[in-house]
């Protein structure tokens, strides 16, 4: 194991390139790339990488970046790209296509506030708004998790039971531009973890189909049902690939959720991304003071691991959800989905949303302490509580 001091962007770039390189004995790797702060170093890393069998095409927009990756994937190559914020918004139409075409494209996304106004700081709104698309979403807490999840993402995406794009997501700057010690696995190990890609429905002269032409309601409906079935299979498949990752690389890339001290907890704090680190620590301190509070970090957002969360928190009656995002007129997206997951499953549970660090503000231990105090005192859930604003 060789630990190096790298940024989250470097970790993502390293993993994308190594995964692409691992397909050199099959149809190679190809992708379209386009810069946007704070993900730019990812595509720069990929552009510099000396692929044995790969093409990186620097295009004129995110829409085309995903377009090139779609064409490459359809021709059987391992494909990926990266973006942030308005870049993801601009890419949106083709992200949807990658999903509908069941292409195992990995999209590294660095969360940045959508604009205008132009704000380059962390906010998950740019990826969460893609929630209704056929695309798995994994949120990371550390640079190592970014690297590991990116490699895992390819295996999961290319699993024939799944065949869906996967987004691997990190917070702007807090991860993307912060160097931490990270293990960068050797190419040979990546080769072993990622077998050659063989896309079953790639463009093929023996079977000259028209992919994506006019399709009647019934047939399109079957496509949607198949996507739904693939999503159903994700949790189990994810665990298989996670175990294989652990076996080969000797490290746990993390589960769809990770729960701490939730067995007996009546109150549970839920968070994702880097806020999870701060929130976990705050909960540990409360525990030490004897408060019966637990913590759940959400890594997977799509499919939403509601069942795993319920099982991990058998006694919880109160959930506080920290959202670094704001869906207009609604509140936090994680909060909203958690409420939906609990519907009819945990009657009378209080699910309170907290809007923390929205638009990139710092989420401090003090802020989380305030949240916990509020949560513990609550007798009912109310509107999402905005934090970090003086009013």
């Amino acid at each position, binding site marked *: 194991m060789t630990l190096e001091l790298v940024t989250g962007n470097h970790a993502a770039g390293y993993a994308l390139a190594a995964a692409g390189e691992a397909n050199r004995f099959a149809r190679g790797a190809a992708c379209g790339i386009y810069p946007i702060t704070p993900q730019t170093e990812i595509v720069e890393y990929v552009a510099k990488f000396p692929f044995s069998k790969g093409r990186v095409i620097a295009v*004129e927009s995110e829409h085309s970046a995903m377009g090139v990756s779609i064409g490459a994937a359809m021709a059987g190559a391992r494909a990926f790209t990266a973006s942030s914020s308005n870049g993801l918004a601009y890419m949106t139409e083709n992200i949807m296509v990658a999903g509908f075409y069941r292409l195992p494209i990995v999209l590294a996304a660095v969360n940045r506030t959508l604009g205008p106004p132009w704000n380059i700081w962390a906010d998950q709104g740019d990826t969460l708004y893609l929630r209704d698309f056929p695309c798995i979403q994994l949120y990371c807490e550390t640079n190592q998790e970014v690297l590991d999840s990116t490699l895992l993402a390819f295996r999961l995406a290319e699993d024939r039971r799944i065949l869906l794009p996967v987004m691997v997501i990190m917070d702007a700057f807090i991860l993307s531009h912060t160097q931490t010690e990270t293990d960068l696995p050797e190419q040979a190990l990546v080769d072993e973890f990622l077998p050659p890609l063989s896309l079953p429905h790639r463009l093929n002269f023996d079977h000259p189909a028209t992919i994506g032409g006019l399709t009647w309601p019934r047939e399109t409906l079957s496509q949607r049902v198949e996507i739904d079935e693939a999503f159903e299979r994700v949790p189990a498949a994810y665990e298989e690939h996670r175990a294989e990752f652990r076996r080969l690389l000797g490290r746990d890339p993390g589960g769809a959720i990770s729960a701490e001290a939730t067995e007996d907890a009546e109150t549970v704090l839920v968070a994702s991304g880097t806020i999870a680190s701060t929130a976990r620590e705050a909960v540990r301190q409360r525990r030490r003071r004897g408060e019966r509070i637990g913590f759940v970090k959400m890594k997977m957002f799509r499919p939403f691991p509601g069942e795993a969360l319920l099982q991990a928190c058998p006694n919880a009656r109160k959930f506080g959800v920290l959202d670094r995002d704001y869906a207009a007129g609604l509140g936090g997206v994680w909060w909203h989905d958690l409420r939906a997951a609990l519907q009819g499953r945990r009657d009378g549970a209080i699910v309170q949303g907290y809007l923390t660090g929205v638009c990139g503000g710092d989420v401090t231990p003090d802020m989380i302490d305030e949240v916990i105090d509020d949560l513990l005192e609550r007798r009912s859930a109310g509107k999402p509580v905005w934090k970090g604003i003086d009013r």
Partner: protein
Amino acid sequence: MSAAPQLAQAPLACSEECLMRPGNTNCGGCGMSVGLTFLSRALKETGQTCQLVIPACCGIVTAGGYPTTGYSVPVLASTFASAAAFAAGAAAVRDLNGESHHVICWAGDGGTYDIGMATISAAAERNDNILYICYDNEIYGNTGGQRSSATPIGARTTTTPSGKIEGKKDIMAIMAAHRIPYAATLSIAHPDDFTRKMKTALAMTGFRFLLIHSPCPTGWKSEPGESIELVRLAVDAGLFPVYEVFDGWRYRINVRPRGGDVREYYRRQNRFPADAIDFDAVRAEIDRHNERLARLAQVFPAAE
């Protein structure tokens, strides 16, 4: 429908059969259908095959409803703006794997002149190894006949109900300005020239652009049986100059206008409101354009 659509499973090499199978739903007299048969012929005569990337347009409807396919080669439908990007990715992987088929974009004027402009410009600037063919019917056919920037001045469309005020965009000048290896205009009324230039494009690498003047009886409000006659009139009158541009600067005029009466071209299409066209202005514009091309061909002739 003349024949039942064939199932997608039937394995067909492009060289054995027309790209476009029987049973498609193209309107009678559609120039795109003719263009596809000429493309098939050029491929067949040169023993080559292709994959098609088709954005939203009538050309994708030609494929018919899933699970049948109206095409005998693999077709990838792209989003409206993305044909050149999807094709660039597929062509890159083809080249990485030492394969020899062509990756051809088959797109309407909307997907080319309008929404796809940035994507095409970028692929051309990178000289991506694709053949881009635009069948220009001067209208958004698929969505029922709205204006595009290829719609000529005076033409009525559903979004220019009293006739278009602006002129047609000179896409050939734009593509030539990218200094791509090859750009050419093709008329289905001149099949030999059409096929020859298709073959020229098929024999080259890099970004190649072909523009087909594609009659659309539905959008042009013309008689289906007159389609070929109409585009012949356009060539004769100099309204659609037939020429090729090498590397963006060497020109060759392939069919010289015979000084035909442009009025006849307009008169036979009900998209042009009677008496609303200023023919003197049209004539002057045609002459200017043709003279410019003739001079370019004289000063910067294509090598023989």
